[in-house]
């Protein structure tokens, strides 16, 4: 294995640039863009000034180090560009000091052109004269080169220079347009943003963003590759690898620096391999955080210390109360702390809740308070994310008594019981953040449910939600692999999910294969039944009703299947029998079986009655049909949808019996029920219209019946439905030779509707389409010119209704 690369945590400029290049993530485009702008500054009179803003540890130095490195590699730039990369730890309080630092930086990089000795005469002058002298020396020695000054911590430099120093610097740049600045800052200070400040609007500012989980995985993967650990790069793609990245993300708050520190842990399996190095790492990091906290003004420090001790995000009101401070004062300090990257806020209702942006910072305070060598809370949380619930328990069982690992594992389990599974919560939160609000609300519950069952399932579901079905299926393959140690029930759930994904992508055979795996595995009766029912549905979709019937029969014959699912299987098998040509008499047997079963939910019984009634109706057995529909209506708790269907079916039986009054009563009741649900509307009304149109009724009777129908729809404000049925009726007429050839009858039919509906605005459009459709049919159904009475959109509706080829 090659030596590990030295990745300096605090001074990336000391890391080999090639290594920094190898681990660059998220900022390739930004860096390329910066290079191009510096190149333009060097080779033209356009001078760009770039500023990268980001909190500590967000990779600013990494970025400028690479910028300087890459510029150095562009040989042809050497004739146009000189780079002065200022030491970030030095400070300047005057323009003179800054110019001197610039000059000295040039002596280091270009010793043949610049020498420290040449500064000697300057020291005999007073400050203003020295400043003038050095400006001239610098400008003269640059000759025709553009000077790129790389400044880190520009905010600190400006603070040192003060207003007059900044003004002098800006005047120097304006009067001598040979200089381009590339700077970094932790925050946008007033010296940069106030319109009265000298450098207002001067820089092209880019805010550096924290890494997302995905980018973090990329970073850790690159570090592993750099260190020759190819297996880690592969591991990161696994479900466990991704969970671990999430654990690290939780601790780091998206901070580059912390990722680099934490990347060493990614493949640690045993608790001992984690606890000891983690504690050591905490020990090493503590001075860093302590220094950061110490650097703050007293009130901000108090706020940070308070927040470090909190388990959950805290409101401003609560903080003000606990710290004996004014609400407004805490609020303004928090704004400042947020800008500095110390805290982050999330809205809840009208207030904002604040928490420490980098959870690792909490350790610092904890270490200080923790003099009794109690377990580190942070490490406990880390383990809660590192291991899933099952792993925590398994590892605890293997631990010897009184070991440190045992104490940590016990605490992790206890805290999970007390506060819920942190690992699952982070996973769900992570996906919700990636999905966006609308998508998140659609998937949230499902991912959460999977997270409780098995985390990998949640991962697969999350990837599917993100529309990355390939990744989702790859995770499922990992779960279901022969050598996978996952429990059969988890494998079975994974196959169920896979079948859904395949089904959505219309890969029916693959979906069937996944479901068949579940049936063979038979991990739980519940999964087996679900798989059989789903497989049957797919068989029906791909027109294999006999196979579907076999699957339904298997469910029906399972002795331990719940009655509800048996009933569902009966209903579905009956419907599959109906789909056979000719209709199998077994359908009536199946629907009757549902009606006769005990303990079946009411809605399934209703479906049984309704579906059986429809078969009787089809067989012209009107008495039995009416009995079944009336039985449906006797059930009080049944659904509006079933009621509606029963009423319309009764209307049809009444129509066949010639009882128009009952037809209208049933239609009115059916429409009323229809308004109570949002399911698709049954198309029984079209049958009634078809029968009315086809009967040789007198013009007067027909008009009266049309009026009755219009009134029934008017009472229920269902004109749009009537409009759809009228257009549907055109199709029935067009397909029926007897009706379509009866020109006079058709004219009377359409006039009847036109008269009955002339005052009804909502029906104007459907009637116009209806009229044109009838005219077209009367003309023999050939003359497409008739359709031109309608506009393009209306024509399309009619063409679709008649099944005509849509004219281009």
């Amino acid at each position: 294995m090659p030596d590990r690369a030295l990745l300096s945590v605090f001074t990336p400029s000391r890391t080999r640039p090639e290594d920094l290049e190898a681990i660059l993530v998220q900022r390739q485009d930004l860096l390329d863009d910066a290079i191009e702008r510096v190149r333009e500054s060097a080779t033209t009179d356009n001078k760009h000034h770039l500023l990268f803003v980001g909190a500590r540890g967000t990779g600013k130095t990494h970025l400028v180090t690479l910028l300087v490195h890459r510029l150095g590699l562009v040989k042809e730039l050497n004739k146009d560009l000189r780079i002065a990369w200022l030491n970030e730890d030095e400070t300047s309080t005057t323009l003179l000091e800054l110019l001197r630092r610039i000059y000295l930086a040039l002596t280091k990089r270009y010793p043949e052109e610049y020498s420290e000795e040449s500064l000697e005469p300057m020291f005999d002058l007073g400050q203003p004269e020295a400043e003038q002298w050095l400006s001239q020396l610098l400008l003269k020695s640059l000759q025709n080169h553009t000077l790129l000054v790389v400044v880190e911590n520009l905010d600190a430099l400006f603070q040192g220079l003060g207003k007059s120093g900044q003004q002098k610097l800006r005047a120097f740049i304006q009067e001598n347009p040979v200089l381009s600045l590339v700077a970094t800052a932790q925050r946008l200070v007033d010296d940069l943003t106030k319109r009265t400040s000298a450098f207002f609007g001067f820089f092209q500012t880019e805010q550096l963003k924290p890494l997302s989980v995905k980018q973090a995985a990329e970073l850790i993967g690159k570090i592993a590759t750099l260190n020759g650990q190819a297996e880690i790069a592969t591991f990161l793609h696994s479900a466990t690898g991704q969970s671990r990245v999430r654990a690290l993300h939780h601790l780091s708050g998206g901070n580059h620096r912390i990722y680099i520190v934490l990347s060493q842990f990614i493949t640690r399996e045993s608790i001992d391999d984690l606890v000891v190095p983690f504690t050591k790492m905490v020990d090493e990091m503590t001075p860093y955080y302590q220094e950061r906290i110490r650097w703050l003004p007293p009130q901000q420090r108090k706020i940070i210390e308070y927040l470090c001790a909190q388990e959950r995000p805290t409101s401003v009101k609560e903080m003000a109360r606990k710290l004996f401070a004014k609400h407004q004062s805490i609020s303004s300090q928090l704004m400042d702390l947020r800008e500095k990257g110390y805290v982050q806020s999330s809205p809840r209702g009208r207030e904002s809740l604040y928490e420490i942006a980098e959870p690792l910072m909490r350790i610092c305070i904890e270490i200080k308070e923790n003099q009794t060598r109690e377990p580190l809370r942070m490490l406990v949380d880390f383990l809660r994310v590192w291991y899933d619930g099952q792993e925590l328990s398994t590892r605890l069982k293997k631990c010897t008594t009184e070991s440190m690992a045992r104490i940590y594992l016990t605490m992790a389990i206890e805290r999970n019981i007390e506060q819920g599974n942190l690992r699952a919560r982070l996973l769900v939160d992570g996906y919700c953040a990636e999905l966006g609000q609308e998508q998140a609300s659609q998937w949230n519950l499902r991912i959460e449910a999977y997270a409780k069952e098995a985390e990998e399932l949640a991962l697969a579901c999350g990837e599917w939600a993100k529309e990355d079905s390939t990744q989702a299926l790859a995770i499922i393959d990992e779960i279901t692999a022969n050598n996978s140690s996952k429990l059969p029930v988890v494998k079975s759930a994974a196959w169920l999910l896979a079948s859904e994904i395949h089904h959505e992508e219309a890969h029916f055979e693959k979906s069937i294969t996944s479901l068949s795996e579940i049936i063979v595995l038979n991990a739980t009766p519940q999964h087996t039944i679900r798989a059989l029912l789903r497989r049957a549905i797919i068989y029906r979709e791909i027109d294999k009703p006999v196979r579907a019937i076999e699957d339904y029969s298997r469910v029906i014959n399972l002795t331990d299947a719940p009655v509800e699912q048996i009933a569902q299987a009966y209903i579905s098998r009956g419907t599959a029998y109906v789909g056979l040509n000719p209709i199998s008499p077994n359908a009536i047997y199946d629907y009757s079986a549902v009606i006769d079963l005990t303990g079946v939910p009411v809605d399934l019984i209703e479906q049984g009655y309704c579906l059986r009634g429809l078969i009787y109706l089809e067989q012209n057995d009107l008495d039995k049909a009416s009995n079944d529909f009336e039985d449906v209506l006797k059930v009080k708790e049944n659904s509006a949808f079933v009621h509606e269907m029963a009423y319309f079916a009764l209307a049809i039986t009444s129509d066949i019996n010639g009882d128009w009054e009952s037809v209208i009563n049933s239609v009115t009741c059916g429409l009323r029920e229809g308004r109570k649900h949002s399911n698709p509307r049954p198309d029984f009304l079209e049958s009634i219209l078809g029968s009315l149109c086809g009967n040789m009724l007198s013009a007067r009777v027909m008009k009266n019946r049309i009026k009755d129908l219009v009134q029934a729809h008017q009472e229920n404000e269902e004109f749009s439905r009537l409009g759809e049925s009228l257009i549907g009726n055109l199709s029935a007429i067009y397909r029926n030779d007897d009706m379509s050839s009866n020109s006079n009858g058709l004219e009377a039919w359409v006039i009847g509707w036109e008269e009955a509906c002339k005052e009804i605005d909502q029906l104007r459009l459907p009637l116009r389409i209806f009229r044109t459709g009838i005219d077209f049919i009367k003309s023999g159904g050939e003359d497409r010119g008739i359709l031109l009475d309608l506009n393009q959109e209306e024509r399309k509706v009619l063409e679709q209704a008649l099944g005509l080829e849509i004219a281009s």
Partner: protein
Amino acid sequence: MKANPGGQIDLKEVVGRDQIIEQIWDTLEQQSIRIVAERRIGKTTIIKKLAAEPRDGWMPIFQDLEKCHTAFEFAMSVYREVDEFLSIQQRSARKTKDFFKAIGGAEIAGIIKLPIFTGEAPWKEILLSAIHDLVHECETKSDRPVFLWDEVPFMLANINEREGETTSMEILDTLRGLRQTYGGDGLRMVITGSIGLHHVISTLKRQNYANSPVNDTLAIEVRPLDMASAQELAAKLIEGENIQTESLEEAANEVAQLSDCFPYYIHHIVKALKLSGLNGSRDTVEQVVLKQLLDSSDPWELNHYRERIPTYYGDSLELAVLEILDSIASRSKAMSLDELLAELKSTGKLDDREQLIDLLRLITQDHYLSRNTNGHYHFQFPLLQRWWKLARGL
């Protein structure tokens, strides 16, 4: 050319400023000039172009004066430029050098080192003799000197802070005196700066300064680019950034429209478009602009239009100014004086017609508002109006 918001622009690439530059040279034939405009509209670019490409017979000297914090620094800075200029012509600032010698100054490594002054430094003498030397030497060469002074109000504010208002007043009066004395010899000044000179003079007037030190100069306002130039600039930048477009003309037109033809915003929009990785189209340009306007970090620094109100108009008038701007921003039509007065009266923010007229004059001078041909008030820049509405939740 790449988008370069805030940076220095190659003067050969400057677009759409030929006309104002011609106007400035024409005016300079007669008198000195003060350039007024909003910050970041491109004043410095214009005066640098004047310096780099002078009209025949002119000898420009460009200085960024924000570096000066005392009258002495100012005088020495002017002297140094004069001296450098004359030495290139193989002439010398003789009178000034004699003066330095007389007060005990010495030249070390080409730099004048003066003794430490116990009382007030003789800035006025140095300034007067340096200008005298310049005019005298130029007379013999028939080139006319023109000082291009940037950030003059910053310098005056610095001197106010360090040495008091009296010195600032003296500087303004001395400069006016120099223009009168040497105007006939061709001396001209172009004075400009980021903060309105009228605010500095108003501050001085509150200290009983009664003169009108710049009313001998002609105020020339730098406006945003005309539409054709704005489109040209946008197209140039889109090409320079290699942004893909289906129609360069359409994308450039959208950038020009949405930026109100401000070159600074044109640069910003194109840069943001580049970094977004999007192609250039009407939709993507609109998307980028809206993102910038809603960005809480205020990348275009528009919030200063809100923040400076108490500073510019005083705390007592802050609410009245906000009410005026809110009222106008939320309407699609311009508002008359009477409509504004009625609105302010109904909200109890202001009820004095004369005070409102004064206030509107100042708000207009500060580029918030303009007046149409009916004298009605509307936002000068639609972009600002759009931001104001978004930022103020109107």
